[in-house]
């Protein structure tokens, strides 16, 4: 056992660090978001791709470099350490790209993956509908064969980043008479196509990252179908498994990582009474311990992946624990603001923890709610009986496959 970098890993890390450091000025500033900075974020991703730091695990022929899962993690760690904000195309890289790699045609991979890696084309995920959330197989968007392709009509919701996206992967019903998991097909939707309307939705943070997406009789060529007709559920599972892997972690990606909370605690401790100091340290320690456990559980998954083994249930364990952790860290950070916790921002205008606190309920919903993750673990790992489900489909596999 060893959690240190191997010599090869250490060398790789040094290369990555050197590249980020040499190009830091060209990258989006720490703490910024794509909101109002879309071009900066597209350029950031292109610069990172030039250095081989985006989609590193993808095959070289499609713009990746065939890197190992460990190397991908090293890249992520170094980007986090340099406080580079999350990629504008993280959903494309994390979820849409893997779906195309696994289920798409060679032509699709050649057409879409490279521009995706460089954020020349930004992608979103068109899954949830007003009537299909946790029960994703209830999707009712309709795709009907017509001419050279398909005509799609319907509505999606909670679509992150749709306002700046060029493409999305769209789950739609192609056979309303088939059992519900069998009648679905996955498509690429051109977000700029006639008949597509994007309407932003404001979240409880005050920002509008989410959108409603409407499409009314929009033409999708058959060459933009991902996987076979009726196989959309299998493609969706690939995406969801990658999403759960992408959204897991220790809170760092939301700005609420162990270093951030440690520095807030250290700043505020001297202002607290001894009793409150003890209480704050106790809660900080509980959060730090959980974050450490999340990292080490991820290390177990990485070790398995790096040796070509299928990881165990660690992926789902990590997502579940991380969502609960984020809420706890966010609340500690907020409470430590003292009387300023009564306001939406501190007297000097800082709203870091207010924002994270308002964001944290979303982490327990995105990529499978906490309750859905518990069902998956209970059924696929502990072997407990399934929930009643129309059509008798099983829950998705617990691990990223």
């Amino acid at each position, binding site marked *: *056992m060893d959690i240190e970098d191997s010599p090869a890993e250490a060398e790789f890390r040094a290369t990555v660090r050197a590249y980020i450091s040499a190009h830091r000025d060209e990258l989006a500033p720490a703490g910024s978001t794509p909101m109002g900075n879309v071009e900066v974020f597209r350029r950031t991703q292109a610069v990172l791709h030039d250095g081989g730091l985006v989609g590193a695990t993808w095959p070289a022929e499609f713009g990746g470099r065939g890197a190992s899962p460990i190397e991908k993690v090293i890249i992520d760690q170094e980007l986090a350490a340099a406080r580079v904000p999350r990629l504008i195309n993280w959903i494309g890289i994390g979820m849409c790209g893997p779906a195309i790699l696994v289920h798409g045609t060679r032509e699709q991979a050649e057409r879409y993956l490279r521009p995706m890696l460089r954020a020349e084309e930004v992608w979103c995920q068109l899954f949830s509908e007003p009537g299909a959330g946790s029960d994703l197989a209830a999707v009712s968007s309709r795709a009907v064969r017509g001419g050279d392709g398909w005509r799609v009509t319907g509505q999606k919701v909670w679509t992150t980043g749709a306002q700046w996206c060029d493409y999305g992967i769209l789950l739609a019903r192609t056979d309303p008479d088939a059992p519900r998991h069998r009648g679905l097909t996955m498509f690429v939707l051109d977000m700029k196509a006639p008949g597509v309307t994007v309407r932003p939705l404001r979240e409880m943070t005050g920002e509008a990252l989410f959108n409603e997406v409407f499409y009314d009789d929009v033409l999708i060529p058959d060459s933009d179908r991902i996987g076979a007709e009726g196989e959309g559920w299998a493609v969706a599972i690939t995406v969801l498994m990658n999403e759960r892997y992408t959204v897991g972690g220790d809170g760092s990606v939301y700005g609420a990582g162990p270093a951030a909370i440690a520095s807030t*605690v250290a700043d505020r401790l001297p202002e607290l009474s001894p009793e409150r100091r003890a209480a704050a340290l*106790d809660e900080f320690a509980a959060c730090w*311990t959980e974050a450490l456990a999340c990292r080490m559980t991820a290390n*177990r998954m990485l070790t398995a992946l790096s040796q070509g083994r299928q990881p165990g249930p660690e992926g789902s364990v990590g997502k*579940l624990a991380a969502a609960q952790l984020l809420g706890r860290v966010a609340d500690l950070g907020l409470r430590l603001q003292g009387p300023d916790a009564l306001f939406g921002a501190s007297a000097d205008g800082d709203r870091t923890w207010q924002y994270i606190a308002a964001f944290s309920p979303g982490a327990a919903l995105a990529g499978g709610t906490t309750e859905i993750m518990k069902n998956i673990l*209970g059924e696929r790992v502990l072997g*407990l009986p399934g929930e009643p489900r129309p059509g008798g489909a099983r829950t998705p596999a617990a691990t990223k496959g």
Partner: protein
Amino acid sequence: MDFQLSEEQIALQDVARDFFAEHSGIENARRVLDGLEDLLDPRAELAELGALGLLAGDDDAGTVLDLAVVAEQAGRQLSPSPLVATAGWAVPLLAGLDTPAASGLLADATKGTVALTVAEPGDVALTAAGTLRGTTQPALDGLRGGAVLTLASSEAGPALVLVAADAGQEIVRQQPLDATRGLARITFADTPATVLATGEAATARWARAFDIATVVLAAEDLGTISEAVRRAVAYALEREAFGRPIGGFQAIKHHLVEAYVYEEQLRSLVWLAAWAADARPGEAPLYAAAAAAYAAEGIEHATYTLVHTHGGIGFTWEHDAHLFWRRAKVDRLLLGDVHDRRARVGELALTAVMP
């Protein structure tokens, strides 16, 4: 990055699993509570397995992680084993001490020929005459009547002292909450003792051994949690209500998953803490405290879930569930409670870089 057990450790785990299945403490625990039996002592068999001397510092000795692997399997069967008090605490306290008393005791301890206890000192003081006065905290394996190691106060600062088994100390018997830990306070009244180390040497040695014992205790708790989850899941699959196995209801299923998440997260923390005890001594105290704090919470949650999942039958004396619950109620307070452990994590983590 290589965060997994080695092939040798997996083989050791299998051997230990079989060993403790054969030397289970579960039935004995109930009979000791009922006053029908004495506490089992698997000391000799464990010594034969090589488990007691893993940290003795010999050339062929093992690692803290090896010991943790064995301890997890002991915890699964609520074994009244000397793994925490002897293998994880007394042995690292004695290893490398260059006195005849210490090296003789170390050899006997690893051979399983003597009982040993390590006691948190309470108000124990070393007199100018070289004898001990005072009463220890409740000590693991204290009821076994063996030699005692403790950290006494003295005019020259803390002193690591050894009291022979037959030196005249009094073992204070109390009704057990969990019989398997053999807990008892020990009272000294001008009891002869041998000083093994004093001052900084004594406190440094004590602190390192304490951290190792903490990790071994957390590893035993990991096994107890794992077995509690396994038993609760098995019952939830078998027991039907409203025409379905109760494990199919989210109300039950989600409790079981929460216990399982504790198990897997704790496994990660125990591995890290055990590995660091050998490989990263500077960070070991932080990871040991983190694993122990997490273990204290996890074992309470998992064993309560075990009782609750079983419904009324789980609340009976005849059922084993309360024996797991008893282990949890005691273990969560040994070597510091969850708040003591978190106080340490909080203090150390403020300036630490998470690996």
